[in-house]
């Protein structure tokens, strides 16, 4: 056995030195330190030896393997540096590179951008770490409001940010309503859409995540009405799902709109009920309403002269419905077997 090891070591090292290119190196790897390579085979044979031999041969065998692996890596680097470097081909495998793929959230967000831009909505963007006044106060959520006390807002430690108080990770994209008007100096009539990342501290499971994407829309003019909202949203969903969908509104409550509504969309996949719509023929898709006069005032827009609607939807939800993804956590998995599936 010991002799076998020595011979193997000599042979392996010798052949390694004479490898001229990646292909030869790969062949060497398969032959010696690969799964069915000579060194591996030898190490597998150890189980038939006596205990004493097992120890010695095992130790030396593993040392050999380590040594060969290190030399292999070095050789690999050397060869790569020398090669003309055509991207992925410079790997240990002389393999063709494939094209990459876009993330389903990106694909969904792009579509949201496209559709709303064609409907006259400018795209806005803003901070994810927000001041309390933009995430709450200016949105008509006063200090004593239950939404404030909720444990699901991530709060920034003032000590880590030069003492800045009251910073939170935004729980919704609604702060963008105020920010976009200010930053882009918008005067009615205008329509703006602001998709972005939001954060909620809640238990993570197949339908809830700490981090997800929403898109916020705001449209203000002298006459913008609920009827207009229905048109815009029906058009959006019909275009997004490439199907004739109708929407229905139900009364709901959000501090920054009045009247407020929940928006349901008729199931784009069935007529009589299916798994996607949980057999109810309707899918809940967003919250919306007519912008509260207090919020308009906070935007320096006169509520006596102007009115408008605001809405918020979840990109994750749209993506899950569209692609049939059943677990929201997959979006964050970093698993290429998931990431490669959508484009």
């Amino acid at each position, binding site marked *: 056995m010991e002799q076998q090891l020595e011979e193997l070591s000599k042979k392996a090292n010798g052949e390694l030195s004479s490898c001229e290119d990646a292909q030869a190196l790969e062949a060497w790897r398969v032959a010696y330190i690969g799964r069915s390579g000579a060194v591996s085979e030898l190490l597998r044979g150890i189980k038939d030896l006596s205990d004493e031999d097992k120890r010695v041969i095992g130790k030396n065998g593993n040392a050999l393997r380590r040594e060969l692996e290190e030399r292999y890596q070095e050789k690999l680097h050397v060869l790569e540096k020398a090669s003309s470097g055509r991207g992925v081909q410079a790997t240990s495998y002389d393999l063709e590179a*494939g094209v990459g*793929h876009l993330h389903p959230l990106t694909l969904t967000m792009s579509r949201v951008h496209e559709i709303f831009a064609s409907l006259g909505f*400018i795209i806005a963007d803003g901070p*994810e770490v927000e001041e309390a006044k933009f995430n709450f106060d200016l949105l008509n959520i006063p200090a004593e409001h239950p939404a404030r006390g909720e444990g699901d807002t991530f709060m*920034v430690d003032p000590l*880590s940010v030069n003492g800045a108080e009251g910073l939170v990770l935004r729980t919704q994209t609604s702060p963008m309503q105020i920010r976009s008007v200010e930053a882009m100096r918008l005067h009615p009539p205008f329509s703006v859409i602001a998709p972005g990342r939001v*954060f909620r501290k809640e238990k993570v499971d197949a339908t809830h995540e700490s981090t997800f994407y929403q898109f916020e829309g705001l449209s203000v003019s002298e006459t913008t009405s609920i*009827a207009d909202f229905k048109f815009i949203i029906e058009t959006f969903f019909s275009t997004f799902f490439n199907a004739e969908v109708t929407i229905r509104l139900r009364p709901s409550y959000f501090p920054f709109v009045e009247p407020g509504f929940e928006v349901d969309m008729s199931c784009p996949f069935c007529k009589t009920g299916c798994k996607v719509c949980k057999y109810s023929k309707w899918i809940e898709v967003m919250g919306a309403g007519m912008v509260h006069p207090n919020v308009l005032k906070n935007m320096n827009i006169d509520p006596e002269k102007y009115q408008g609607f605001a809405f918020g939807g979840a990109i994750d939800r749209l993506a899950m419905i569209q692609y049939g993804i059943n677990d929201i956590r997959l979006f964050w998995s*970093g698993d290429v077997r998931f990431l490669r599936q959508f484009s």
Partner: protein
Amino acid sequence: MKLSTNWIKELVPGLQLSGLEIAELLTNHSFETVVEHQYVIDPAITVAQILKLEQHPNADRLRLATITDGENEIRVVCGAPNISEGDVVPYSPPGTKVYDEDGKLFELSVAKIRGVESPGMLNSARELGLSNDHGGIFLLPKDTPLGTKLSEYIAGDTLLEADILPDRAHDCLSHIGVAREVAALTKLSVQEPETMELPEASEQVDGWNVRIENPASASRVMGIVFEGAQEGAETPIVMQARLLSLGARPINPIVDCTNYVMFEYGQPSHAYDQAKLQGKNIAVTETKSEVLFSALNGKLYQPAHGDLLIECEGETIGLAGIVGGTSSQVDNATNNIFLEVATFNAFAIQQASAHIGLRTEAASRFSKGISPVVAGVASSRLAQLIISLTGAQMRGVIDTNPEMQTPKPIMFRPARVSAYAGTEISADISEDILMRLGFSIEKASEDQWEIIAPAQRLDILGEHDLIDEVVRVHGLSVIAESDIAMQAPAVAVSDEVYWMHQVREKLVELGFTETYSYSFEDEVFATLVNSEIHPHVELLNPMAPELKKLRYSMLPGLLSAMITSRDEMHRDKNGVERALFEIGRVYHVGDTGVVPGVIERKVIAGISVGSEDRLQEVMDAFVAQYNLAPLDVREVEKPFGKCLQYSYAGEFFGIGYVFSAELLKKMKYRMPVVAFEVSVAALMKHAPDVEIPVRSLQEVRDNFKMPNQFMELPKFPSVFRDISILVPSDTGVDAVESAIDQVGGELVVDVDVFDEFSQDGDDTKSLAFHVEYRSPDRTLTDKEISEIHKKIEHALKHQFSAEIR
């Protein structure tokens, strides 16, 4: 909130709708309501009395109850601990349908329980379908006529679950509130429950008095003194059944009345046994020193500084608005009570409830805010109920705030309703709706009215709230979508959106697959790239202690993904993705950003198997796409690898990383890896002027791509085996692959030819394949795999005259 359909129909006489129809009506006009469950009381269930109780001969915990229905005597087996001789109980003979623990009906048969025959059973509340209470037999009032059907007293009911919106919680966490809604929606009227007129309030009653330490704690506190409640009084069956189906447990008539009125009017109240109080001075105070309170639920609670308490002669007798104590509990022997009906400060109760971690039905109502007017109405009802049920007498009423202010009138212009709706809704409709909802209207002119809201509607603050009332009652479905006239002309996407799209397309072309990582920096991966040396934005309440920092760089997240995908990336197969990218934000500390304290920076980051040449390829692509001059590079050695710092026009542009062998080892990567981070701001600063195309709705429609349907990731591991064969040179590789696929069936997930070799002049060639085995429902054993592998080899020998090498 749970709602009883029967109760609502009692409050709205003439209402013909079923529970389901009521739920739909409320969902469409008020708040989302669903049917939670229904129950029926089988007419076979009769009222019986227990004559004799004996021990079961064969079971310690069972007894034999001899019962009578007034005519016949029957003996049944019963395991309940709460029955005594003389009790009046429900009896179900064989053939009766009762409910099991899953809420399903099952038919009773004559059973033999531990050797003794039991023709039927005595029932618990759960078996009757009333609640989940299965701790004992449902005890009926002693004066219930024997032999009568239980269904005469308890009608079947449909229980609804209403998701009362926060702005309707002031008035709708009660059956009366919901009844008012339903009446308004169906154009019917509410029949108010029977109440008793209260005597004029006084400062003290027989020495009893109430003091509010801090006026802000409670806008109204009423105290009603009752004396002479008879022992042995019992709560009527219907009340008990209602309490059970709404999740409360009947205890004794006085306590039951307070719970009943809470569900009826939304006003919680609490009764204290006078005999157990130290004196007559009642106070609403704020916690100052340490208080350990023994609550009615048997647990101890410690309120925080400032939380509201009810005290009597300095002793804490209640956590105000949340729960009462064991020391002053009302029981069957109680004759004299002090009833507290108050309106506590909503925020104070919300805070206290969170501090002690106890959320009761009372606390959830107070937390939302109740109008002080309701305390007065509820007191009248409580007096009526307590007196009629217990025979007690009312000694007097204390009231800290008897003068109720009328709400301020709100200016309302009916034309605004049509303007908001976008469709004509006439002033007549508005008037009709508002009146049905109990609003009073004064018309200053045709176009301008003065509206006063009902006292309990704390949510009506302005004209827009009134518009909401009209629109929702009228029906959101009535508003049709507007026509295209509203549509603004199409605009282009923003510069950044456009350019990031271009960058993404380019990276994809170069073989990068997009990933998304959390903004929270995982410490484990951060230390691999020395991220911890930088100051980070930190959270006070992270998901987990190791996730308290916001990411300073994109690298740790990409590293994590690279490791997650390691097995895939190491697959010896053409076309496998070996590079990832992400466009996201990093969070730095500083004051030059939009928000003081935090600077958010957008970064394009990527990680790839490959060498420095790969890095060069990417940077070249950026330079080409953005029409830039060559970048300035500076090399720096870091513990985890070589860093290439790129700058452009004297400013920071990005960083490239070539990972060290040590880092690769930690990542367990057998191939070299490089990474990069490029500043979006720097790119955008030098972006060439482009005319961003504007797309019309029709163009966007035409651009629709059928979405790929997600395929679940394999749950069980794959095993790879190779096959090397020598075949005639004219053998088609595809044919061999197909054959392998076919023989392997569903267990062969992939066949990949990785080597094809023949020398000129040979009439044979060698082919080598990686075969991937995997089952969707189990981990394959070596034996199974070897068997199939042999089968495949065999087939190849036959079909292609292959020689296995």
